[in-house]
């Protein structure tokens, strides 16, 4: 965000303009964050780790950690491959590209709760998937996709719903990134004899790196926050970390443990962001080039 020409002023006008937002964010981000930290470590007799022990002693917590990480690890690679494919399909300017883009972008504005309910209509026992399978004669009776006794299919339904819901975000970032790359680079690669795959590997992906980095960080952090999808599809059969926070806070009325779980999510988000930023760092010289 660099203004073409930014003026230097001694007047406090910019500070006046910024002040409300800064105060607002301090009050609604800084203060609760601080309070949350305090809460998680505060007992009746001052500092304590009892809430953390309580959290860790609950098997559902570890199940939630495992599920959250597993879901993220499976969903994100699928989403990136899918989003890149979709972006390249759009770049090839098919007939009706505007319509395709619209349909593909719709889930961007759909909440994870709504996404869960949408796929519930498909995966539920008497839902549209089973109906189709029976209609086509593949199975005699419907399959219990959402039964807790089928952990794999339970997991897969959540994966499908998450891929469906959140690929649009990656798509938008990737398409915007692709449009910012001058066409000349790809054309030069074509003229100099590069095949489609070589162009993808040597030109498109490296030039998309900043966009992919942003998408990856954003998507991973958002993936850690998913919970309503699983709630809508599986009830309490597929615990996720944020869902556990919700349970501790609303169901069990224990804000201290809820804060501890929330801080685990925050910690995971920060670790992931740092890892990505390091792993995907480019030499400064390359970044300045465009």
């Amino acid at each position, binding site marked *: 965000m660099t203004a073409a020409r930014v003026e230097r002023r001694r007047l406090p006008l910019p500070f006046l303009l910024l002040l409300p937002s800064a105060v607002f964010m301090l009050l609604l981000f800084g203060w609760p964050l601080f309070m949350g930290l305090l809460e998680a470590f505060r007992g009746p007799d001052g500092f304590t780790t009892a809430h953390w022990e309580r959290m860790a002693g609950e098997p559902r917590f570890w199940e939630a950690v495992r599920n959250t990480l597993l879901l993220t690890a499976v969903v994100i690679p699928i989403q990136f491959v899918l989003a890149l494919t979709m972006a390249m399909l759009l770049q090839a300017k098919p007939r009706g590209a505007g319509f395709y883009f619209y349909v593909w972008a719709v889930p961007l504005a759909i909440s994870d709760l709504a996404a869960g309910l949408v796929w519930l209509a498909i995966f539920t026992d008497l839902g549209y998937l089973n109906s189709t399978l029976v209609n086509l004669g593949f199975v005699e009776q419907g399959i219990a996709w959402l039964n807790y006794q089928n952990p794999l299919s339970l997991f897969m339904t959540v994966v499908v719903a998450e891929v469906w819901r959140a690929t649009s975000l990656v798509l938008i970032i990737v398409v915007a990134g692709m449009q910012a790359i*001058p066409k*000349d*680079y790809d*054309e*030069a*690669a*074509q*003229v*100099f*004899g*590069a*095949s489609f795959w*070589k162009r993808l590997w*040597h*030109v498109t992906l*490296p*030039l998309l*790196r900043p966009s992919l980095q942003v998408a990856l960080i954003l998507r991973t952090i958002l993936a850690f926050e998913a919970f309503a999808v699983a709630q809508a599809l599986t009830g309490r059969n597929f615990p996720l970390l944020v869902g556990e926070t919700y349970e501790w806070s609303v169901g069990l009325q224990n804000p201290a443990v809820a804060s501890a779980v929330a801080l685990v999510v925050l910690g995971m988000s920060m670790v992931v962001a740092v890892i990505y930023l390091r792993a995907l760092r*480019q*030499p400064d*010289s*390359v970044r*300045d*080039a*465009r």
Partner: protein
Amino acid sequence: MAEVRMRDLVKSYPGGSGRATDEVSLDVEDGEFVVLLGPSGCGKTTLLRMVAGLELPDSGQVVIGSRDVTYLPPKDRNLSMVFQSYAVFPHKKVRANIGFGLRMRGKDKAAVDHKVAWAAELLQLTPFLDRYPSQLSGGQRQRVAVARAIVMDADVLLMDEPLSNLDALLRLSFRAELKRLVGELGTTTLYVTHDQVEALSLGDRVAVMRDGRIEQCDEPIAVYDAPASEFVGGFLGSPPMNFLAGTLVEGDGDGGGVALDLGAARVPAPAELAGMRGQAVVLGVRAETIGVSRSARPGAARCVVEVFEPLGSAVLITAELAGQRLKVQAANTFRAEPGDELWLDLAPEHLRWYDTSSGAALATGTSAVPA
């Protein structure tokens, strides 16, 4: 290396008005340097891109060597190209940029290194091989783009306004260097520009384009001296060719000659136009071919100075001749003031004749266009 043959190439863009190229045919001989010159939107870049394979024609044919490549993907055409924006990959070092085409064609590393070193030496890029493009100046990036193109041993070298992003001084020096380089390599080259000086200086032949058609294709001197149409004469040269409209009448000379009546002055016309007596024609004459003197002389046309501009190497006079305006270039020692009377000598061998309605050149002995 190979020759390029374009035949009846038609290309129109969806939503565009009319054809970008309209049945264009052109041959570029083996080792020849042909420049496509024209104003923006004349179809020169479209033509180049059809040779490159970056656009496919609606109809027509492109042949490189003896191979039809009309619809072949760019990567299979064995071309190389210099882009207007250079298109030097920002994420690759200079070395990888120059060697890119060779690596894509599967050459082994030793061969690539050898060629890269050669090209870098030729373009004075050796000290920069391990830098990223962002660490180079615009001129150096341009050299990288050229180096990347010449290492390819391509059949045809395509250049799309490669000098237009350089500043004026750099452009001048790199132009000469480019000419020397391409001359030594002897690669068949197709070069697009809207800069007439560049076109005249570089090309073995210059193809002047307008509205998707080639108006004239000839050696630079011929295109400049004998423009095939008013458009070509007006597009080339600075100042552009003067055009004076008049009517052909009975000449004053012996043998029933023919002359152009400009109102206040009469200019003898070639005998080939005798059959057109009574018709309106346009006379074209270059500013620097007009003789100018301060005293009245027989056969000279009187004009009045409107503007006098010293240009350093010469002086430029804008004058009014019988209600029509023309520009005259004189030696830099010549002086005049607005309002001065001058007499102009229009030497017959420098006069060109054009049809009033079509603007096409009329065949005359003096302006005979080489067939």
